């Protein structure tokens, strides 16, 4: 399959640069919203992931997720945010939108689940550093990601972590707008969202990062609620039921259910039980490997009251990142152990594509050829400059 952008009458349109062409090599996944291919940029042979948005079935034209992803990824350029290389429209039986994304071979969830890999404190710090640095960049641009979770944190063959899947992202709205509280995958959903708030802030992303931090240390999801109500219960059980003292205004949130008068009645049961906030010792027991500074940061990230929760800038400046040991260099982070016939997935962010890694390929060779491509690209650039 070869795709190219249409060119009117073979003449170059003013203001439009030469268009790159891409080859789709293999289909690697399919969801309700998109099909993902492993492909190549013809001019550079660079390996890319091509996310082909299914358009035909959306009666309102370009899908909102696609619009968000294109809109934000075009603006966000950072080492720790997935690169949108190009967008093109493929002709053919039905025209469709194609997002050309940088090729990434794994995600953090896969690494967490790979029991043969041991994490050091320095490894965890490195992943956290890259996650927060990418998120700081998004927040600087006023962009809320709204779906952070380990399988949206992708890993490049060289170990770099990149935020991906901006299909739910949006700008922090102005004073009069409201937003839907049904964002973020349940286990990583902040308490203000669980309580139905429509005027939340970028702090919802920070909560998710806190949950991911805990998961990296525990090697299992921190707050794996079964239902939305269970999630709230689990959150409060782990971090204490908020009160007006600990979280001013909490009782005004739309879905706040706790009513002291009702606690004794049978029908509300344990769901409205009041849990005490965990003591420092309790937290130390829960995260036995964490340093005091790591615990501090975790507690600041998972503070129930969003107004008191730490922001990305302060998190990056926290003592945890200054203390020994230093974050592991991305190149030296643990990689997925080789699988049966040494194949690996192409990841583009999982939520909207909903594919679970159908096809696999030789991971090590890919990584190596990526390195070669990198060099070739560099040489091509130099050549352009020289001649």
């Amino acid at each position, binding site marked *: 399959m070869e795709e190219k952008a249409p060119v009117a009458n073979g003449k170059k349109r003013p*203001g*439009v*640069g030469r268009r790159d062409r891409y080859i789709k090599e293999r289909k690697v996944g399919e969801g309700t919203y998109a099909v993902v291919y492993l492909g190549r940029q013809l001019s550079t042979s660079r390996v890319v992931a091509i996310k082909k948005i299914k358009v035909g079935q959306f009666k309102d034209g370009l899908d909102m997720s696609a619009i968000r992803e294109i809109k934000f990824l075009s603006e966000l350029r950072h080492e720790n945010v997935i690169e949108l290389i190009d967008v093109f429209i493929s002709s053919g039986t039905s025209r469709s939108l194609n997002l050309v994304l940088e090729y990434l071979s794994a995600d953090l969830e896969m690494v967490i689940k790979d029991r*043969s890999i*041991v994490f*050091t*404190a*320095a490894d965890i710090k490195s992943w956290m*550093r890259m996650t927060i*640095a990418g998120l*700081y*960049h998004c927040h*600087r641009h*006023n962009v809320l990601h709204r779906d952070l979770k380990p399988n949206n944190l992708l890993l490049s063959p*060289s170990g770099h972590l990149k935020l991906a899947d901006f299909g739910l992202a949006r700008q*922090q709205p*102005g*004073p*009069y707008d409201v937003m839907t509280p049904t964002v973020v995958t349940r286990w990583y959903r902040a308490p*203000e969202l669980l309580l139905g*708030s*429509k*005027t*939340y*802030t970028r*702090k919802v992303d920070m909560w998710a990062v806190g949950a991911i931090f805990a998961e990296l240390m525990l090697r299992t999801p921190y707050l794996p609620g079964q239902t939305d109500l269970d999630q709230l219960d689990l959150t409060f059980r782990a971090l204490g039921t908020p009160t007006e003292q600990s*979280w*001013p*205004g*909490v009782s*005004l*949130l*739309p879905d706040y259910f706790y009513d002291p008068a009702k606690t004794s009645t049978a029908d509300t049961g344990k769901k409205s039980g009041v849990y005490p906030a965990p003591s420092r010792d309790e937290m130390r027991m829960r995260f036995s490997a964490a340093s005091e500074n790591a615990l501090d940061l975790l507690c600041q990230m998972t503070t129930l*009251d*969003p*107004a008191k*929760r730490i922001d990305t*800038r302060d998190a*990056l*400046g926290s003592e945890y*990142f*200054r203390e*020994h*040991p*230093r*974050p592991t*260099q991305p*190149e*030296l982070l*643990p990689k997925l152990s080789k699988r049966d016939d040494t194949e690996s997935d192409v990841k583009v962010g999982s939520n909207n594509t909903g594919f679970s890694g159908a096809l696999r390929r030789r991971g090590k060779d890919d990584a190596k050829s990526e*390195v070669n491509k*990198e*060099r070739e690209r*560099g*040489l091509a*650039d*130099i050549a352009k400059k*020289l001649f």
Partner: protein
Amino acid sequence: MDGVSRIEDEVCPVCKLDTYMNPSMRFLINTECYHKMCESCVDRIYSQGPAPCPYPNCGKTLRKNRFKRQLFSDVAVEREVDVRKRVAKVFNRRREEFASLSDYNDYLEEVETAIFNLVNKVDVEATEARLEAYEAANRQAIATNASLQTREAENAELLRNLEAERRRQQRAEALEESMAEQELKREVERKVIKELANAREGEAENAVRKAVAAAQKTVQLKKSSARRSARDTSTVSFEAAALSMINTKLATPDARDDLPYDTLEEEEYVNDLYTVGEHYYDPFLDNIENSQQAKAAGFGVRNVYEQLLFEAFMGLGCFIENEKVRHKGAVTT
């Protein structure tokens, strides 16, 4: 007797065969008593199962699978190395597990004592017991650190390969350059000869001088351009960049730990144009200021102030007319 070759010949103390008669003979030792014997003696004595050491007065029971090649000519060294390996497998804690350097040093001291005891046969039983107890108590941590060591070894291997590849490239580049240079020299010679052949008598010397000067100029030009392209190639080499970075980080693990490290600094954006005030008069934002619910969700006027001021100054100092003239071709995407 031919002294030189006889010294190199060895005799098996068990069967008395020597390498002079049997050049393919190999010697093995074991980690129990370190008594040396040849491979065929080991086969003969231990193929049927454990048996006592054939050395007189030794009495240790040996097994075939515990025999190995002797690496060091001095058995004492061989033995110490083995002891160290065995102890290090159990006592494999890492620097980063200790809060301070002195704690770590204390730990290393303890390990060294254990090794000394075992090597010199001091308090062997007590030391062995300690080793065993420690191993039982720290099984998980030991396994973790072992797997880390494996990973580090793999990384080091990767680095060695990258380094070797880089050296190979450098050699190839150097070779190419010197060949190009020789080719140029030959070209100069050809030019000179041609000039000589065509020159009229009396003008030969002048013509040669001119040809040489011209040729030298081209040589210099080509040389510098070759050097330039070689340099560019090396700067864009991905491996080289990765390598130097990893190398510096790996080579001085302790030095870098002492340097101040600031994650924020690397990502920080600088703003010295404005500060966000605590309160402004703003009827537009009254509803937020008065909304307890918004406040509970973390959304306050402060968020709005920050955003509006940020937008007011983002790009204030981008003067397109000046900047875009310098970046020609910015019209195309």
